[in-house]
């Protein structure tokens, strides 16, 4: 439940017993929110410079770090494909980089199993930096024009905003697990 629980303990117990999360929400919400974040390019902001952080990618990382094993290992393939439709990068860069990210996250889980928030943030910052550098390199390949420094502001904003995204994902996770279905 969101917020502090109100009512007498009997009422709350009555509301929670015999209930479980609604499967559509429990499984579908991470996918839906990441895809919605991919569509953030249809926001009211018309930018003439790359300023918006890659929200969809950050969302993927946040979900993956919060609930390892909930998104399947192959989730990078369909989600990256969807992101490619809206991102404006050369088609396929999302598929490659998102699939690779899922594999790298698996490796990080293997090597550094016990992580705190700071380590998560560090890992996410490294991955976001690598993602931004690689996408801008691929975009530079497509236009044969080097794009070296344009991503710096975007990178800084992304690193600073990552904790905010994790808070948002934590909130969404509580919504995901609302006991809505009667058994």
């Amino acid at each position: 439940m969101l917020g502090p629980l109100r009512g007498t303990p009997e009422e709350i117990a009555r509301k929670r017993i015999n209930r479980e999360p609604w499967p559509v929400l429990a499984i579908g919400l991470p996918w839906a929110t990441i895809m919605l974040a991919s569509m953030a390019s249809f926001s009211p902001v018309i930018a003439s410079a790359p300023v918006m952080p890659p929200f969809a990618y950050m969302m993927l990382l946040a979900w993956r770090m919060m609930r390892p094993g909930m998104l399947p290992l192959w989730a990078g393939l369909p989600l990256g494909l969807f992101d490619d439709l809206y991102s404006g990068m050369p088609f396929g860069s999302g598929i490659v980089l998102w699939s690779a990210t899922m594999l790298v996250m698996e490796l990080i889980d293997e090597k550094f199993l016990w992580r705190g928030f700071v380590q998560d943030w560090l890992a996410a910052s490294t991955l976001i930096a690598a993602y931004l550098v690689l996408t801008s390199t691929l975009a530079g390949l497509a236009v044969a024009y080097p794009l070296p420094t344009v991503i710096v502001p975007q990178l800084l904003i992304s690193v600073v905003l990552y904790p905010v995204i994790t808070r948002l994902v934590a909130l969404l996770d509580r919504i995901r697990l609302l006991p809505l279905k009667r058994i």
Partner: protein
Amino acid sequence: MARSQDRRPGYSRRAQYGIFTGYVVAILGVVAGVAVLITSLVNPDAFSFARSAAAEVARPVGRAGATGRTTGQGVFAAIGAYFNAGRQNAELRREVEEARANAVSMQSLQNENRRLKALLGIVDPQRKPIATVRLIGSTAASTRRYAIIDAGTSSGVRPGLPVRAASGLIGRVVEAGPGTARVLLVTDPENVVPVKRARDGLTAFVQGASNGRIDIRLINQGINPVKAGDIFVTSGSGGLYPPGIPVAVATEPHRDGAIGHLAADPADNEFVIVEPAYSAAARAEMEAIEERGAKSAAGEP
């Protein structure tokens, strides 16, 4: 945190196979992605159908957003206007007086122009805009600079057509779906526009730098005569962009040209105009390219 339960399959064959298949699909994803990426680097239009279909789906969201953007800007502008209303009022009064005087002299100049043209037998080509459209989205998170407009082939918008706002050039259409089209903004490094200095016709070209600024480069190298504040307009060479549309204002002159600001920031313009290609030759070439069906006019200046 502890390793999650489904990563420790134990002796369950089914769980072991599940994990193995996951790895196989993820690695296949990387391989397939590389193949798709190479295809799209070699032929950038290969997946345009998928992108335009996706843009069609997101069109209502973008339209709602575009309306919200104007309303939001209106609110801020209204609040801001209260703070210096008095000073602004006096300034505007003076400007209106000046503009009135200018309008009268402009009218007489126009009349004279028309008379002289009639004398010489020059017929102005009639160029009606193809569509007036909304900007409904942009690739704000990407180093490539595209915007999406809410009209497509059903309103006559085709790849290659120039797009402008009231105050200057926005870009050109690169992909068109039935109800949406993708515009390559002037700030994208792939977009090269032939320009001339408005004052004296000094020729140059403009290339996007992808960071909101644009690079103005002179065609005739030598001593750089560009000064901060110089305005560059389209020269019309190449036949695609009509001549005389403002493109850039030079801000920082350097050895080979200058860094400039956009004349028309896409963020400030809710409505933009899709214009026909300027010269008949360019129009004919675009039609020929479309008939061949191979590529859009991506390489055309």
